[in-house]
């Protein structure tokens, strides 16, 4: 399938008083047309900075993209003038963030915010943009659009605000939607509604989704392919089915084992990953995960493993990847 977005060797660093933080440190991944790709990891692993880098929204001067290419529809976004980049944001790549309240302007009506997008990017005017805004609201399941457009963000619930964010992301028919923890702030029944909505709309409109999340359940339900990130690097990549059935990186394995599952018999004890996430300004020599890894050998503390193929469409950055077996079935 055609590659839509191709991120190559991306490095985004932050210069702070505590030293250089290598938030994203040489990651490569792609999104093909119409598919849903997940970027999974825990807080501080660099997944959100990766998304911000794609949009060129990393906060300067502390944060800077120091290396790499972000090729979207054949153009390197990092080489575009700011003016051109503004036409990509919102027009060709839509964005959905975790907390819709902070991404919507509290003093503008929903209508103004929706019409602004289509007027800026699509050159619509007055009645035309108004009609498009009503249409967008109905698309995301908000009835009575004409009245709702006159309301302000605080007059909507969290779930409704996230629907509005989705409407804004879809306003210009983008080829790609970047969704950064789109349902983390929502209750589980509302989360299900929003994810179903995103899935069905992206299918209908043919948009690809780059979903950034820490929730392994959400990934399992919605993603076609999965990238697992740890300490600024991608440590494993495969199709969703493959990575869950046959994880080949100890971190992925650890994540999957540490969450209790409703469909499995209750275990007497959970199996956490030991230790704490690393300090990105003081990463250890060798593999960043080695200090927490149950399988680590001497080599892991000396040489850093690269992301290498271990099976068809399956890559892992672990010296022991070929020796890691599928997780043992849970005890009955």
């Amino acid at each position: 399938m055609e590659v839509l977005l191709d991120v190559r060797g991306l490095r985004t660093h932050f210069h702070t008083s505590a030293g250089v933080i290598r938030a994203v440190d040489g990651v490569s991944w792609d999104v093909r047309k119409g598919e849903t790709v997940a970027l999974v990891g825990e807080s501080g692993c660099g997944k959100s900075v990766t998304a911000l880098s794609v949009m060129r929204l990393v906060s300067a001067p502390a944060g800077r993209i120091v290396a790499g290419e972000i090729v979207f529809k054949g153009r390197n976004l990092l080489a575009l003038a700011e003016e051109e980049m503004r036409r990509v944001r919102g027009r060709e790549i839509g964005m959905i963030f975790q907390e819709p309240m902070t991404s919507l302007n509290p003093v503008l009506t929903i209508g103004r915010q929706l019409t602004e997008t289509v007027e800026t990017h699509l050159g619509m005017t007055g009645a035309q943009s108004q009609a498009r805004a009503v249409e967008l609201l109905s698309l995301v399941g908000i009835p009575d659009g004409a009245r709702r457009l006159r309301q302000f963000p605080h007059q909507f619930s969290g779930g409704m605000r996230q629907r509005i964010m989705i409407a804004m992301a879809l306003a210009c028919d983008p080829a790609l939607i970047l969704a950064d923890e789109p349902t983390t702030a929502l209750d589980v029944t509302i989360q299900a509604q929003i994810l179903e909505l995103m899935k069905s709309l992206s299918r209908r409109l043919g948009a690809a989704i780059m979903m950034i999340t820490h929730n392994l359940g959400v990934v399992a339900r919605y993603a076609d392919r999965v990238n697992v990130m740890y300490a600024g690097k991608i440590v494993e990549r495969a199709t969703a089915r493959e990575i869950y059935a046959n994880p080949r990186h100890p971190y992925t394995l650890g994540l999957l084992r540490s969450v209790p599952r409703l469909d499995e018999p209750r275990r007497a004890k959970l199996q956490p990953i030991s230790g704490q996430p690393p300090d990105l300004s003081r990463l250890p020599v060798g593999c960043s995960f080695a200090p927490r890894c149950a399988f680590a050998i001497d080599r892991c503390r000396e040489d850093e493993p690269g992301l290498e193929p271990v099976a068809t469409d399956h890559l892992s950055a672990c010296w022991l990847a070929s020796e890691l077996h599928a997780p043992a079935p849970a005890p009955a």
Partner: protein
Amino acid sequence: MSTPEPILRVENLVKHFEVGGGLFGGRPAVVKAVDGVSFEIGRGETLGLVGESGCGKTTTGRCILRLEPPTGGRVIFEGRDLSTLSDGEMRGMRRRMQVIFQDPYSSLNPRMTVGQIIAEPLAVHRIVPDRAARAARVQDLLRHAGLLPAMARRYPHELSGGQRQRVGIARALAMEPSLIICDEPVSALDVSIQAQIINLLEELQAEFGLTYLFVAHDLSVVRHISDRVAVMYLGKIVEITDRKSLYEDPLHPYTKALLSAVPIPDPVVEARREHVVLGGEVPSPLNPPLGCVFHPRCPIAVAECRTTVPELRQIRPGHRAACIRV
């Protein structure tokens, strides 16, 4: 499964908040945050209290601790009705019931070292009046919470989220409580750290015979840690039973929808599962629906549900649900 001697009995607990009104006149509206909640917890047991935001689960916990004065109902803890206690007696009682909060950062004083944070209640409540003995006790508590003794000299901002939650746990343990109300204790933590904290809570429960009221929204975590589970919706308990019955044989349509909404971390299982996606949203507690509060979103509601408030009744031994359709 009600135990012969419950450590905590909550009877018809009610908490109403008045909102609006005031300066520009107008009658204040009443939010029925907790609207007639009753349950018991046996000694050494863990009761999970689950529900979505705004269902009243946190307020229920706060009313039990008397951090909020209840509007009505009774809380009987270790045989004593807390509403009849004087302030002094209540202070003594509070030692026996402790709380662990969701965000350990905002509940730890940033200007105190970890050692001071844990030592403070030991001094204030004269649990360990002697200074040297207190330092030793702090070391002991840190060890129980899985922290190194050297942590006593650190400040909260120097710790990771998981370590801070361990400090919160050590501080709660310092009071030698019999009941700990855990209010979303792992929801702010990364998954790899959540499991560490859950295991720690279970180990401490076994070692000290603790009783937990575990307030959370994550149904997978609640299943792991709880002996019994109560499900709340808009200020009311809609179902309460033992863990096995709730997860294997839920009765209330809201419980069923909640369980169905939890994604399973396995694409093969997910592809096979049938999903009940609930329509609509949780109604405003300012203006709750008449009849059964769940009826506007309920897939099996009938006309009667719009007018009849279902009572939480026993459907099977030890299994109660508030639904006229079950």
